[in-house]
């Protein structure tokens, strides 16, 4: 069943109010009370007696040999505790494990630069001192001598002759290459009426810039050889896999602890090099060390989103706009290091056809190194780039064939009655009704009156544009897809853990394996527990944060890639159902052999159905098992402390055919932007905006809507303002919030949100992972700009970044500044 609606401000419910079902209610967040009082514990809030502050010396060159490093000046300074150099790192650790097959597999990556620097901002030496200020001063006294090399800053040039090699071990700047082809391209192009050719499209570099930068406080326990790493890393399981082998230590010697994280968006997955440096320093200096990244350091060195080119694209299309297939050459700019890459080279394949029915697709994918900051996951990781490409193709084809973008979409969208739908590469879209979502979105922006609005804008000297962005938020990864990158890898499937226990005084305690960054896991987990145990979310204590000592994590634990509503909550459901069964089993024994079927959970306890007098409160259950258990049957098998591992149903993909189900759920988003451009300057305002989301069953609609809003805001920032721009020498021109403009309150357009609820048939709660659908905003703005230009020079938008000056250029010189497109009769 699918339900729809539109919301601007979801209704609040009182937690005290009796409710049959907590799932689906706007239960106020448990997290809020501490956060609105400044009582959260973020990474820079963690302190230890005698701790030293870490500051990194960073490269001013994009590409240079390091000829010498002298730390003596810094070490002699009063208040300095010590330093760590790349040379020490190379002797104390092994290079990080590489995900890539060759040639990327040959890259030697350490926690600090060894012998060479490869981007501006790369960490070379770490200095530790008594205060932040002294550490910074001392870093100025570290003398590093360089021999500069020419920088590679454009991925298109990276493989050219006489281009400097960034990683000599890899024998060139190619990191990974693979060809993906499904269907019958020759037949598709033979059947086509027209072939639309697009010279190049470019998805730009930006990231979500979480307001809290990275950080850690690391302690070393010399007696047991163990590090405790307080950190805001959002995927400790991945960090551990990277760090343990490099540090030549078992993973249980790396204890990861987090509480509150000030935004992550994927950008806090790859801090493992800095964490290793901190671990080595804590051991070397025999004191806790604290590292809080500066904003400028974050911008220069952390997790830029994948910059991608789509070259020589050809689209096979019928005259009526029916899309038959496409081929393109995707060129991904990985930056200087493969810290999570080249996984971006396969992650996009989760959404290979976008939302469309074309069956014949070829993507020749290449990833190269450049002298820019390393790329890593950023909200919408790799799928956003590919979905932006499919949306650009739709709008350019519609434009060239003089068709209506709405009609082209509706003609080609996968239909609701085709769900579950197997894509050409074996992914299974679980549910959804894209055409209906588009209808709702268009209605919210008053689309039937678009022409009148266009004329009204024209009368005011403005160009009106309306653009659609439709996108997918694939969630719950099958990590087996990594084998398409490197068949040697031994990853597949996915998992997440929860424990639920009933404690001695009747307290219900839930522990999650996740590392939330504002997604309200404590609240939604409590909603799921409350429904099963027939109690209130207020009765459920969900531990804040993550601690690998809790033993409630598995290999893929963390908060990333749109999966908590599936993996995390399914684990919570499983553990709670185990606990419910145990409570009944215990009560059955206490009541003298009453069968489980005769018992029910209600009003904070367990009772015999139809006999409310026979009632055992949870508190009594907890007390009996934990502290008053003499005389219980020997074979009772009840601990009231239940651990459940949720494992989604996946098979290992077929690596040869690059075929298989790569993600379990497919949340969908359709956005529509209405903009008005001032033709004199290229400045534009977003005057109306609708965002429709379908993530299946919504556990807490207000939290879901919050994610939709946040993702939309990030997309609008990226579309209009945000870009990591490098000059030809590899200097980052936007290294902080002065030059990198993120939207503020006055930048936000009026927003209307709506939803469709198509439960996933594949998940225990009908939920789908969500939160990364914001890419739709970038697609919608690009489409709206192109629509406004359609009758004003007709430039086609080719870049995902469209600041005002670029729009002005497209208005002034449509042929030069727009995409190069040609149409040939097939």
């Amino acid at each position, binding site marked *: 069943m699918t339900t729809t609606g539109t919301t601007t401000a979801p209704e609040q419910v009182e937690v005290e109010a009796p409710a049959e079902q907590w799932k689906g209610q706007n239960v106020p967040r448990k997290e809020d009370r501490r956060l609105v*009082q400044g009582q959260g514990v973020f990474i820079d809030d963690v302190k230890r007696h005698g701790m030293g502050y870490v500051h990194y010396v960073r490269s001013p060159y994009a590409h240079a040999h390091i000829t010498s490093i002298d730390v003596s000046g810094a070490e002699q300074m009063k208040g300095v505790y010590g330093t760590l150099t790349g040379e020490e790192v190379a002797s104390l650790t092994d290079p990080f494990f590489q995900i890539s097959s060759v040639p990327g597999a040959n890259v030697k990556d350490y926690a600090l630069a060894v012998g060479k620097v490869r981007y501006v901002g790369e960490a070379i030496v770490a200095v530790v001192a008594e205060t932040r200020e002294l550490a910074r001063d001392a870093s100025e006294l570290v003398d590093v001598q360089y021999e500069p090399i020419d920088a590679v800053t454009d991925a298109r040039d990276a493989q050219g002759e006489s281009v400097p090699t960034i990683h000599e071990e890899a024998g060139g700047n190619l990191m990974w290459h693979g060809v993906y082809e499904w269907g019958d391209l020759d037949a598709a192009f033979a059947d086509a009426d027209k072939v639309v050719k697009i010279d190049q499209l470019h998805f730009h570099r930006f990231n979500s810039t979480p307001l809290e930068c990275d950080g850690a406080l690391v302690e070393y326990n010399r007696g047991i050889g163990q590090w405790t790493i307080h950190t805001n890393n959002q995927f400790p399981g991945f960090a551990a896999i990277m760090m343990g082998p490099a540090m030549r230590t078992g993973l249980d010697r790396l204890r990861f602890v987090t509480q509150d*994280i000030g935004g992550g968006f994927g950008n806090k997955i790859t801090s493992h090099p800095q964490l290793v440096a901190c671990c080595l320093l804590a051991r070397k200096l025999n004191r806790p060390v604290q590292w809080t990244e500066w904003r400028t350091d974050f911008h220069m060195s952390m997790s830029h989103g994948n910059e991608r080119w789509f070259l020589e694209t050809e689209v096979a299309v019928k005259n009526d706009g029916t899309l038959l297939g496409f081929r393109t050459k995707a060129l991904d700019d990985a930056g200087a290091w493969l810290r999570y890459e080249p996984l971006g080279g396969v992650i996009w394949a989760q959404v290979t056809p976008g939302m469309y029915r074309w069956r014949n697709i070829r993507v020749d994918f290449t990833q190269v190194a450049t002298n820019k900051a390393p790329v890593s996951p950023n909200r919408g990781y790799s799928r956003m780039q590919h979905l932006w490409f499919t949306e650009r193709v739709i709008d350019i084809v519609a434009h060239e064939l003089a068709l209506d973008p709405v009609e082209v979409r509706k003609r080609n969208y996968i239909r609701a009655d085709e769900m579950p739908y197997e894509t050409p590469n074996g992914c299974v879209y679980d549910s959804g009704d894209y055409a209906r979502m588009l209808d709702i979105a268009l209605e919210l922006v008053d689309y039937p009156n678009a022409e009148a609005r266009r004329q009204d804008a024209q009368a005011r000297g403005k160009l009106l544009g309306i653009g659609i962005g439709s996108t997918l938020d694939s969630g719950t990864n099958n990590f087996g897809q990594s084998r398409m990158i490197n068949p040697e890898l031994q990853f597949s499937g996915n998992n997440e853990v929860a424990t639920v226990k009933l404690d001695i005084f009747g307290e219900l305690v839930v522990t999650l394996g996740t590392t939330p960054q504002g997604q309200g896991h404590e609240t939604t987990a409590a909603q799921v527990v409350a429904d099963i145990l027939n109690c209130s979310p207020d009765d459920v204590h969900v531990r804040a944060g993550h601690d690998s000592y809790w033993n409630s994590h598995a290999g893929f634990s963390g908060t990333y890639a749109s999966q908590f509503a599936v993996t995390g909550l399914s684990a919570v459901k499983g553990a709670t159902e185990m606990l419910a069964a145990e409570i009944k089993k215990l009560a059955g024994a206490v009541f003298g052999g009453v069968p489980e079927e005769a018992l029910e959970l209600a009003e904070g306890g367990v009772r015999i159905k139809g006999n409310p007098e026979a009632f055992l409160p949870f508190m009594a259950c907890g007390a009996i098992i934990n502290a008053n258990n003499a005389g219980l049957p020997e074979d009772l098998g009840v601990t009231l402390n239940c651990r459940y591992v949720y494992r989604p149903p996946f098979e290992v993909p077929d690596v040869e055919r690059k075929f298989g189900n790569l993600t379990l759920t497919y949340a969908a988003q359709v956005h529509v932007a209405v903009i008005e451009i001032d033709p004199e300057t290229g400045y534009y305002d977003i005057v109306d905006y609708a965002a429709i989301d379908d993530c299946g069953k919504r556990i807490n609609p207000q939290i879901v809507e*919050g994610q939709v809003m946040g993702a939309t805001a990030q997309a609008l920032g990226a579309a209009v303002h945000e870009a990591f721009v490098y000059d030809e020498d590899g200097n980052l021109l936007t290294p902080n919030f002065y030059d990198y403009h993120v939207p503020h*309150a006055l930048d936000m357009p009026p927003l209307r949100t709506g939803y469709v609820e198509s439960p996933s048939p594949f998940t225990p709660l009908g939920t789908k992972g969500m939160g990364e659908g914001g890419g739709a905003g970038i697609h919608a703005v690009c489409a709206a700009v192109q629509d406004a230009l359609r009758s004003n020079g007709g430039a086609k938008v080719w870049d995902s970044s469209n600041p005002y000056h670029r729009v002005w250029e497209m208005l002034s010189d449509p042929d030069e500044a727009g995409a190069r497109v040609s149409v040939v009769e097939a």
Partner: protein
Amino acid sequence: MEAGTVSSQRQISVTVNGTTYEREVEARKLLIHFLRDDLDLTGSHIGCDTGNCGACSIIVDGTLVKSCMLLAVQADRTQIETVEGLADGEELSKLQQAFSAHHALQCGYCTPGMLMSATALLRKNPHPSDEEIKKGLQGNICRCTGYWNIFEAVKAAAE
């Protein structure tokens, strides 16, 4: 001058949320670092190096300031209000309640600064227009919410 001796110590006295603190501080120490590191008032946060983000917003002698843009010594003999002082015991302020009710926070990192800006705004202008609310929040960056729910929360608290 020898490296490491550039900082001179100064004695300052500040009153924060009604409690007076006397401390020796390095002359170059930022007020936000003084609050967080010396007084352990970690509710105010740091999100940038450039005064753009507003996570460190506090009220000094009745005026909203970004505490990364002041030295601690400049706050000598001032009355400071931070997020830790907004609630009256267990009772959250109207704005704090409205932020929760309207889901105006996700990760909560910008929230203390946002609340201080909104508090300063509503004190000065108890019935702001929509535009005035947005202008009042313009100096604070939030990367989670897109501001729409923050706007609604401030509007609700003002009504």
